[in-house]
């Protein structure tokens, strides 16, 4: 056979593994098969007549495992130890839109409590507009988008992904109903539905942090207790900033109490975000490398500088006029997006850092 005709591509194989197992013929016998896995139990090494079959005491065994599995990690870690998440750009973008929706939900509730019905209605619309693309982004990221409804196949409190899917469904429906009620002229119903949505928003804005924190990825896992608060702070800041910009665009005058309050909310939330991130980075120690180096590091740095620039512009608003404050809101929104991408990118490089994974595992005990 000439080399040209030599086919090296294997002709067998179906990706994704067997979809279902069915016997070709029901009850068909299998040649050479013995009951109770007897054919599998046979071993020339471990049969009862060999010297390997000895009685073992437990303590020596436990001690041997302890020796190998505790203490400092060896010099060589031959990875890969774990696999990074396969999520693409849709997921961090969803974290951002979902966060804006949750934050705007909080704002709508606060406006209602403060008695500003018009702004509350606007905030609810902002929230609905932000939550609308969210399911689409999540579906686009699935390996099998056509099966997106399987997400609601079970209710699984243990899995943040399951709870998040349910929460997003609940929030989006409540918010849509609230906006619908508003359009139908039922203000009290709109208020009640909006309040219920804001309550769901408390989880919608923060569960994404739990989702990342409950994985085996070192930088996420070690930030477990901080990721939820950090993400909800970003959500509040971006939600308030988006609502503020929309209110400005719809002609709410300068000096209006809602505009002032939203300015306070976005500044407070983004400052809290920056502070929490800083504390968390200190806590992480060497693991923070994933947040400081490479693509994630660049994103993080630019997000932080955007926040600082925004804070400065807000302080300058008395001199430079309201435009400077609007730019600050825009910067917060951009910073929020960069923070989301940075966290996801940091997880990828952290999972690929075999030494970090190995050392985190060792530090458990």
């Amino acid at each position: 056979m000439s080399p040209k005709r030599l086919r090296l591509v294997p002709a067998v194989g179906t990706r994704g593994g067997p979809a279902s197992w069915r016997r070709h013929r029901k009850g068909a016998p299998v040649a050479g098969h013995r009951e109770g896995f007897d054919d599998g139990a046979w071993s020339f090494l471990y049969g009862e007549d060999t010297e390997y079959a000895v009685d073992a005491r437990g303590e020596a065994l436990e001690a041997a495992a302890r020796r190998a599995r505790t203490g400092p990690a060896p010099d060589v870690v031959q990875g890969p130890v774990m696999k990074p998440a396969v999520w693409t750009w849709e997921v961090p973008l969803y974290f951002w839109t979902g966060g804006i929706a949750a934050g705007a939900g909080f704002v709508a509730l606060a406006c209602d409590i403060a008695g500003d019905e018009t702004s509350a209605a606007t905030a609810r619309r902002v929230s609905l507009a932000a939550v609308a693309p969210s399911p689409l982004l999540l579906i686009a990221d699935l390996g099998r988008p056509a099966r997106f409804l399987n997400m609601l196949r079970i209710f699984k409190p243990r899995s943040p992904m399951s709870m998040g899917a349910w929460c997003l469904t609940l929030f989006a429906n409540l918010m849509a109903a609230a906006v619908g009620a508003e359009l139908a002229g039922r203000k009290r119903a709109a208020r009640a539905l909006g309040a219920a949505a804001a309550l769901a928003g408390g989880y919608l804005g923060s569960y994404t942090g739990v989702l990342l924190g409950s994985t085996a990825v070192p930088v996420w896992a070690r930030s477990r207790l901080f990721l939820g608060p950090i993400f909800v702070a970003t959500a509040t800041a971006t939600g308030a900033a988006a609502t503020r910009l929309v209110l400005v665009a719809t002609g709410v005058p300068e000096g209006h109490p809602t505009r002032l309050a939203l300015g306070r909310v976005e500044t407070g939330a983004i400052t809290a975000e920056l502070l929490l991130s800083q504390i968390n980075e200190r806590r992480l120690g060497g693991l923070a490398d994933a947040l400081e180096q490479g693509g994630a590091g660049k994103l993080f740095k630019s997000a932080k500088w955007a926040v600082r620039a925004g804070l400065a512009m807000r302080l300058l608003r008395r001199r430079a006029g309201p435009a400077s404050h609007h730019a600050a809101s825009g910067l917060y929104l951009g910073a929020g997006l960069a923070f989301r991408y940075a966290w996801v990118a940091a997880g990828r490089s952290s999972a690929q850092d075999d030494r970090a994974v190995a050392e985190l595992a060792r530090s458990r005990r």
Partner: protein
Amino acid sequence: MPERLGFFTDTTVCIGCKACEVACKQWNDLPSDGGELRPGGSYDHTGELSASTWRHVRFVEMLEPAGGHMPSLPASGGNGHDDVDLVEMAIDGGDRWLFMSDVCKHCTHAGCLDACPTGAIFRSEFGTVVVQADVCNGCGYCIPSCPFGVIDRDQEDGRAAKCTLCYDRLEDGLEPACAKSCPTDSIQFGPYEQLVERARGRVQALHERGIETAYLYGAADAPGEELAGGLGAFFLLTEPPERYGLPAQAESPLEEGVVPATAAAIAAGLVAAAGVAAAFALPSRPAPAKQLLSRVRGWPR
């Protein structure tokens, strides 16, 4: 209900033939991941477990050239006249290869199982962890939730896949394809308790023969020291786990952290909602400190 079934992989008798990898691919109709020969690289072309490689014989190369050059052996094209005592080399333990047939651990506390939002991953009647390919929608959350880096999403197919411990064969009373094909009995299959007993005996025998670094990875640990609650597929190793790309300690990340993380997140959500409401309740005048700062000339630089 049938008893728990598992694998005991004894790396001390593995010869790295990769028959298990091939048998697995053949039985489960899995495609090749492609191989790449890298000059100076590992002879292990498979590299890692993936959505279409459910058994992977990891080559742990501990070969170090003695005195700056590799000994000339007939197998490597040399004349074999170098004065090398292969038996001595093997006993010294410095120059050798370790082989380890890696596989899904079928953890008692399985991270992938905890993470799966669709219920596609379930625990079978044999105590194994199996993905239902007709339910999985490829959300990918199981992948970073596995502390052992086993499960993966197939890029072309879009679903997650991993070892099923040959669920279809078990239902027919047959041992899994890899165990069936293993020529040295490095891969042993059977009822879990029996396997652990056998493995204990094997470790003790090795200890008595002077290989004192032998230990079981994932079984027969003291209470509270188990890996992910105990591994359904456990290993006999002779080097620290990291040499084989295994974490020294592991637990389902959800088992470990989802409750405190959720508590912190929900608390933060409530604080945020309350904070927003509080900001609206505050009187509308700027804080004097900020006023002061904004008046400082040149601020911010």
